[in-house]
């Protein structure tokens, strides 16, 4: 207490929490001191700055009370940086503790030392670490093993000089499985941050040791070892077979992390072994995967995202398990959405009836987002399975008859795609046209207008319908405007007598009164084409040409990305369906720094690999669960693109678009390049041209596949818009090249 009085004489506040805590910390009674330490930790958790108490807390470090010691250590770890000089006072205790007869205390000392990130402390770590790495107690050894990774993070040079890496590598042969697991953990972390160290080199010898430890170590250790095994490239077929054989029993583990890690390991090593064995392993793999679907929702979500990846590579491994993926009423939305995607993936002509009944049920629920996805899924099934298309169309008609606004709209968008593949369903067009007044979303309106234009010769009142749209032309979204234009021109070409006036009016409206360069350009093109008298068939050939058939509307990742993601199974990367580079940054966290880094990263990615980046983005957007998660980030990005970035975006409108812009010579619709299915796109330039002229051409089918849930793509969309929609001068060149192209015809 006398101490306190003297202190009080200095500039320390007499009142307040800090004062009280300090008084307690130096109290003569042990229980008061301990209580004060607890309170200090509490204040620390609440975010209060109690670093001023550092010296007083430190005084309590030398104690026999293990609990108190732990508390002081916890405080030290948090505030060491604020008092680097004082830390030196703790060193002695640490060194002493690391030689304590009690292994718990030895381990605690070495564990904590590694967490005190102060240069001075590091200097004193060498000796204790060396001793504890060779400690008789496996508990201390396993703790010391992790400590090497901590030290490497702080001071790689010292770690290498003292030969800690070699010691760690030797410890893979430790008799204790947990020590083995932690050594592998530490080595693989070091290897990842600094590949040049060659820290973790699996040889046939270490492989054997790891396989031995696999069956005995903790579940977490198993995950580490399995992940390491998965990354290992085997020398021969025998070795791969051996690994698969030893790993497969882990499918039965209760921990889903272990199960997924085992699936990953077997899946990656399976490539090397005989097809019969492959089938065998697929059979073994399926039930555990299905079991994961009945675990906690978050785990389910991770599992479902991974199953999605596996199915893209091996579509048939779960085709008997459709029912397992039926949504429960109380499933969280992110699980439901993912289940829908998987159900569509495993749909085949045997289970399609069941699936359709189920999807129809979902389409009648109340969650708007879920309902839309269910409707979309029906369309995907129709296009995937030809024999079921009629049933799908009937189901969609039933849904349209419910007159629920958003169901009708989504159904119409979907039906448009179905028409692209099966033109034979025109009988339902009158039903669709009845809904015309209910459609208020640009997508749905555009879809219906496209249908009217495409079947103009068969719809007696097509002129009236389109006339209605032309009247309100300038109130429509540009997406719809483009479709109106095209549809009216089609109508004119098919039934010139009916649409003479209409076509004049719409071209007038689109060229004279419209601000959107895309719409204007398209209108000019049509105008030119129509006024071309030298070859009257040219317009027909272009506008009414056969469109390439739709193959699928199910999103798939490009094969290269898929392979990359399969080697990342069960990680965050596999959940996002994005390569890790896209969301893991080395930078520090600070709202701006991270944002800037993220933007740069995005731009960089887009520049380097426009298709893959766009596809990855699109793929993620395909499932809102994570897309939702993403959208926040992307929204932030959007803001920045609108603000600072457009300059760069204009200079170099690369971001996924450049290829097409060059080809088509017009500002291209934004979505098309972001489509995940390159074949019809990239391969066929003509399609792109048609896409500009005819109607949505090649772009439409696939884009609508991706489009439905394009939260994420906004990120890209906005970026491109700022490139395209920018001031007139950027539009001039495209216009010119339009004329060049026109010259060709």
């Amino acid at each position, binding site marked *: 207490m006398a101490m306190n009085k003297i202190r009080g004489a200095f500039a320390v506040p007499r009142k307040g929490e800090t004062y009280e805590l300090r008084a307690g910390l130096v109290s003569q009674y042990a229980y008061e001191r301990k209580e004060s330490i607890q309170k200090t930790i509490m204040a620390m*958790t609440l975010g209060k700055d109690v670093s001023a108490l550092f010296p007083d807390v430190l005084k309590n470090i030398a104690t026999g009370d293990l609990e108190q010691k732990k508390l002081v250590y916890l405080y030290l770890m948090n505030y060491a940086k604020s008092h680097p000089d004082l830390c030196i006072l703790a060193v002695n205790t640490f060194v002493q503790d690391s030689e304590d007869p*009690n292994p718990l205390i030895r381990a605690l000392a070495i564990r904590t030392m590694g967490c005190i990130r102060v240069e001075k402390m590091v200097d004193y770590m060498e000796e204790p670490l060396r001793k504890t790495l060779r400690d008789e107690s496996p508990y201390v050894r396993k703790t010391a093993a992790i400590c090497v990774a901590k030290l490497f993070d702080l001071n790689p040079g010292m770690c290498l000089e003292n030969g800690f890496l070699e010691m760690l590598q030797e410890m893979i042969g430790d008799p204790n499985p947990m020590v083995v697991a932690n050594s592998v953990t530490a080595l693989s972390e070091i290897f990842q941050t600094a590949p040049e160290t060659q820290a973790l080199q699996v040889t046939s010898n270490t492989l054997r040791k790891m396989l031995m430890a696999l069956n005995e170590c903790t579940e*977490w250790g198993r995950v580490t070892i399995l992940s390491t095994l998965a990354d290992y490239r085997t020398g021969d077929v025998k070795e791969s077979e051996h690994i698969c054989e030893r790993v497969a029993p882990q499918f039965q583990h209760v921990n889903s992390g272990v199960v997924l890690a085992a699936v990953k390991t077997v899946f990656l090593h399976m490539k090397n072994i005989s097809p019969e064995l492959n089938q065998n392993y697929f059979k073994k793999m399926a039930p555990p995967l299905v*079991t994961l679907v009945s675990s906690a929702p978050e785990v389910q*979500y991770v599992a479902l995202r991974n199953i999605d990846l596996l199915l893209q590579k091996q579509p048939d491994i779960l085709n008997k398990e459709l029912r397992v993926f039926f949504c429960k009423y109380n499933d969280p939305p992110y699980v439901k959405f993912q289940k829908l995607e998987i159900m569509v993936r495993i749909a085949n002509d045997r289970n399609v009836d069941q699936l359709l009944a189920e999807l129809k049920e979902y389409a009648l629920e109340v969650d708007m987002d879920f309902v839309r996805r269910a409707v979309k899924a029906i369309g995907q099934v129709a296009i995937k399975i030809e024999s079921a298309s009629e049933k799908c169309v009937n189901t969609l008609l039933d849904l349209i008859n419910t007159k629920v606004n958003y169901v009708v709209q989504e159904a119409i968008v979907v039906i448009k795609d179905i028409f692209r593949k099966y033109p034979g369903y025109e009988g339902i067009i009158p039903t669709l046209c009845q809904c015309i007044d209910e459609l208020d979303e640009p997508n749905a309106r555009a879809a219906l207008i496209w249908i009217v234009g495409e079947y103009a010769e068969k719809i007696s009142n097509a002129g009236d319908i389109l006339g209605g749209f032309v009247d309100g032309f300038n109130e429509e979204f540009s997406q719809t405007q483009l479709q109106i234009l095209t549809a009216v021109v089609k109508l004119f070409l098919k039934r010139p007598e009916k649409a003479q006036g209409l076509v004049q009016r719409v071209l007038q409206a689109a060229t004279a009164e419209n601000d959107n360069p895309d719409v204007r350009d398209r209108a000019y093109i049509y105008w030119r084409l129509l006024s071309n008298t030298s070859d009257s068939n040219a317009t027909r050939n272009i506008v009414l040409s056969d469109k390439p058939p739709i193959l699928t509307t199910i999103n798939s990742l490009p094969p290269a990305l898929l392979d990359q993601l399969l080697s990342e199974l*069960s990680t965050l990367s596999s959940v996002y369906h994005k390569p890790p580079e896209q969301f893991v*940054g080395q930078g520090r966290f600070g709202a701006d720094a991270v944002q800037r880094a993220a933007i740069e990263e995005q731009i960089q990615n887009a520049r380097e690999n426009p298709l893959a980046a766009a596809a990855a983005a699109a793929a993620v957007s395909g499932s809102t669960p994570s897309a939702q998660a993403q959208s926040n980030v992307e929204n932030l990005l959007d803001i920045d693109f609108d603000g600072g970035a457009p300059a760069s975006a204009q200079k170099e409108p690369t971001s996924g678009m450049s290829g097409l812009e060059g080809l088509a010579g017009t500002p291209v619709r934004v979505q098309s390049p972001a489509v995940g299915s390159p074949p019809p796109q990239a391969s066929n330039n003509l399609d792109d041209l048609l896409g500009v002229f005819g109607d949505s051409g090649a772009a439409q089918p696939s884009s609508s596949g991706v489009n439905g849930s394009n939260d994420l793509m906004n990120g890209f969309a906005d970026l491109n818009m700022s490139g395209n929609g920018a001031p007139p001068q950027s539009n001039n060149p495209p216009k010119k090249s339009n004329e060049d192209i026109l010259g060709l015809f």
Partner: protein
Amino acid sequence: MLSGILIFNQKGENLIFRAFRSDCRPRLADIFRIQVISNPQVRSPILTLGSTTFSHVKHENIYLVAVTKSNANAALIFEFMYRFIMLGKSYFGKFDEEAVKNNFVLIYELLDEILDFGYPQNTETDTLKMYITTEGVKSVIANSPTDSSRITQQATGALSWRRSDIKYRKNEAFVDVIEDVNLLMSATGTVLRADVNGQIIMRAYLTGTPECKFGLNDRLLLDGGAPVSGGKNGAGNSSGAMATSKATRAAAGSVTLEDCQFHQCVKLGRFDADRIISFVPPDGEFELMRYRATENVNLPFKVHPIVREIGTTKVEYSVAIKANYSAKLFATNVVIRIPTPLNTAKTTERTSQGRAKYEPEHNNIVWKIPRFSGQSEYVLTAEATLTSMTHQKAWSRPPLSLSFSLLMFTSSGLLVRYLKVFEKSNYSSVKWVRYMTRAGSYEIRF
């Protein structure tokens, strides 16, 4: 791996903040609060902002958050979080805001022990309880260095779940087979999905280091022609245990287990090779295995609902439920939840058994039957009067759901054939088996 573990209450107050790496800054707590807790739009348990990923689980009234900066193993993160919750429950009874606030020191201590540099370490409850103690949890072992070295041996050993010095005067093992039966039935009465998630809980009070072998009427095993030898077992106990020898005779049929998952004490290699479940059990209660069965599921209840919407003002219900199990058995706590439209003003119910009540907060009529004997059939008729609404929205008709528990019955038909205990000292042990079937998600559409 993990950079830190955070716990928040529902208001977004940070209760626990434990950083394992230097990149886990205090500011992250604010970011999570703003982006997740106060953002109703969030629909995913994983959220990446910049390069920081937050993975969260909501339990009771707290959020548990794992922060990571790397491409971490997502499955492992969530498994770990659930393990952490289990630990919390076993230490504090209930893992909620109050428990966290009252035990924050202990929670820091636990976190320090189960995670090192963000890598999960030993998370076995029993082992941890030996050296991380609180008033409620007293260590059996004094805190002397020799004991500590024993503890650490166990915490890292190949049998990290079992002490070597366990002694009981009477050696007993209790096996509970608990099945959750899931059903999804369509409005037309076809079974869309019926399966069983079973778990086998064991309470082992056995001396020394016993090696146990456990046999089920698993079709793969029986077809494989493995030797059948029922163990000598004690008689049934008061709560309706069944001697396994009797069960063996009863098991004319066998069960196809779609998939099994085992506690880490089970030697997976042996199961994979010859489907023998062999293990050294932890002391006390643990979950030996989980399994899934989808074939020949016996549904204990058949429900036949007739729901008619009469105009826009009235809904009429007639729900019949029939017990499909032997008349000797009876189910307890049968609760049938019958959804009503959101604009229900009042309801009237009549039941032939049990009591029904309208719960406006859940939009449900809840029909409770405390005791439901086998083969009996009960009916509820009810009527819901609706208020008229200006904006009439179609009623989504959520499924009717059921919960119950039924002893001495397994939906899958699973039976325990034997449990054999081998120990050096060759003592005899008494084993008890109990069966129970509960409703998992038992939903019937109408």
